[in-house]
């Protein structure tokens, strides 16, 4: 059974239909890229998968790891192993980054019937991950995303993923706003997450990220539908020819 199975998904916001019948199947061990021009529904798809209020699913189904995803609250989805990496991670002033990391990890452990993690092993694990993301320990004691640069915010998202080890990582425009060094660090983090047990979805506007994280599948989203799917060569075509040609071809 697929890890994530989206069938004929229709969703609207404020009565306006954005997703108009999406079918997508993702297995553990696979990396999928979802590409598309602005306004194609990429972020809406991410928010629907994340369970954000205000998005109404009018038709279709989503099954995640055997659960009916649409019946689950946002936090239940996270605990079940679907983790959303944000395009614009929000600031939570006064809440230390390390505190959020610990609470999030313990929420997951609690759901698994495990005790809270002891501080010593937690700190050890977190420090290693921080170093691996080319970040400073001081970063752990700053407010969540407060005053972070664009690159720091995205690194922080990957850091959370590495710690929380989701079954499916859904990364929304993780490459936007990154300089080349940060892009390498972030890509490296994503590549370390790759594994047989885990699915990864990269939602992106540009092909750039895909030079560093090679997808197994590429899908082109346009006007709320996946109009074309292929392997990584599709991404290269998009880069070389732009969306227009592929759109025309598909229609």
């Amino acid at each position, binding site marked *: 059974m697929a890890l994530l199975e989206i069938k004929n998904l229709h969703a609207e916001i404020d009565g306006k239909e954005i997703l108009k019948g999406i079918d997508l199947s993702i297995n553990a061990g696979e990396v999928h890229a979802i590409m598309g021009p602005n306004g194609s529904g990429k972020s809406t798809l991410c928010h629907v998968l994340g369970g954000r*209020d205000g998005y109404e699913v009018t038709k279709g189904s989503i099954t995640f790891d055997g659960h009916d995803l649409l019946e689950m609250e*946002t*936090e239940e989805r996270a605990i079940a192993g679907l983790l959303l990496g944000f395009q614009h991670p929000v600031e*939570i002033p*006064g809440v230390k980054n390390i*505190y959020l990391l610990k*609470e999030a990890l313990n*929420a997951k452990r609690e759901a698994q019937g495990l005790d809270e993690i002891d501080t010593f092993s937690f700190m050890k694990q977190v420090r290693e991950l921080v170093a691996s993301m080319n970040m400073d320990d001081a970063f752990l004691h700053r407010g969540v995303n407060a005053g972070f640069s664009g690159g720091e915010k995205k690194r922080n998202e990957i850091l959370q993923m590495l710690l929380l080890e989701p079954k499916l990582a859904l990364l929304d425009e993780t490459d936007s706003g990154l300089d080349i060094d940060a892009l390498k660090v972030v890509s490296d983090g994503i590549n370390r997450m790759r594994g047989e047990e885990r699915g990864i979805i990269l939602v992106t506007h540009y092909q750039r990220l895909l030079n560093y994280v090679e997808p197994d599948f590429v899908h082109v989203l346009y006007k709320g539908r996946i109009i074309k799917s292929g392997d990584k060569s599709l991404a290269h075509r998009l880069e070389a020819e732009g969306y227009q040609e592929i759109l025309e071809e598909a229609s």
Partner: protein
Amino acid sequence: MTETQELEQLVKREYKYGFTTDIEQEIIPPGLDEDVVRMISAKKNEPEFMLEWRLSAFRQWKKMAEPEWAHVHYPKIDYQALSYYAAPKTQEELDAEAPESLDDVDPKLLETYEKLGIPLHERAALAGVKGANVAVDAVFDSVSVTTTFKEKLAEAGVIFCSFSEAVENHPELVQKYLGTVVPQGDNFFAALNSAVFSDGSFVYVPKGVTCPMELSTYFRINAQNTGQFERTLIVAEEGASVSYLEGCTAPQRDENQLHAAVVELVALDDAEIKYSTVQNWYPGDEEGKGGIYNFVTKRGECRGDRSKITWTQVEAGSAITWKYPSCVLKGDDSVGEFYSVAVGNNYQQIDSGTKMVHLGSRTRSTIVSKGISAGRAENAYRGLVHIGKTSKDARNFTQCDSLLIGDRCGAHTFPYIEAKNSSAQVEHEATTSKVSDDQMFYLRSRGLSEEDAMNMVVNGFCKEVFNELPMEFAVEAQALLAVSLEGSVG
């Protein structure tokens, strides 16, 4: 479901400390006249000067009108319908020494402590267990039932006792300092308190002494329909320092209860007083019925040069809060600080803030106020920064932040700045923000429940104030905020 509907559904929490302890009460019949004042004084075997002081306060109170300027609304209080004294009958002699061990105390009271969630180590302190280091002067309604650690404190020369005991054993200190910060006729509620105050705490730290432990008091209202009039006086002599913690919670009931306390702090040269409060009086039910009226006068005077007074408060309970812990900075180079978290849910009304009165030169004050409103609560910050003519190079920094949860609550800010000396530097920063959907979604998508996510945002908002609380209190304060805002998310 709309956000509003979700709020409606979720803004349903019950007061967690809803219970009344079934101890027989000795209550003076309702009503207030000079005879009642005399009766209270007589019951407490007070010396003549106390009676005269009370009577003078009562005469002033009779001529005063209840203030109406605060941003709060409540039905008129009938002061003749209140009873002004209640004492537990369980102790055979009211003026007896507080029991050495809790075995001598009514087990019902111990149960009460348990329900109140007084931390184990403090219960141990109450029980006189060796090694426990927080002294607790527990005020059960109007009369102190038990006081611990007096001996250990006495070694250091610190006096920490009930107000009644202070009147009996240290009348000269009481007479010297009582009413010197908050005069009898200061305001309507202070005058009422001065006339009929039942009991409270007294702390005296002599010259050069650092109080060896944090002093802690738990207040409870327990008698039906009995106004509570606590009186606290803390004096730190030259170079002395003390940290005082006050926390309280009250049993659930229908009638509104009036609480009009007075707290006076006196800091002489180089002395430092830190006064921390976690307040959780019964706030009324979710329709706004019942709940405590908390009309409190708290003021500290930095009487000496280089003295310092810090107020830190977490105000979570009460139907109505009217409270402005203030500092009069008389001494040169003295420092006043006010750190406050005031949270209102359901129909709570809060009008709170501070006054910093700069009289000495180079005096400094800091105000950090965090107001949180949820449900239909109204939360007002009211603050005065006064720089007197005589005060050269005074400085004030004020930061006043409001956080709104939902769309039916209110946040108001009434800052008053009076600078009569041109060398003053006064800064005021104010923000109003909402707990955003983005923040909630972000945290929930990390696996946190709605309530945990809300608590995290709120605690982050309050962090600067919590940092000022003593460690154990900070933990309690966070727990209290969680309870207070339970069900306010959506």
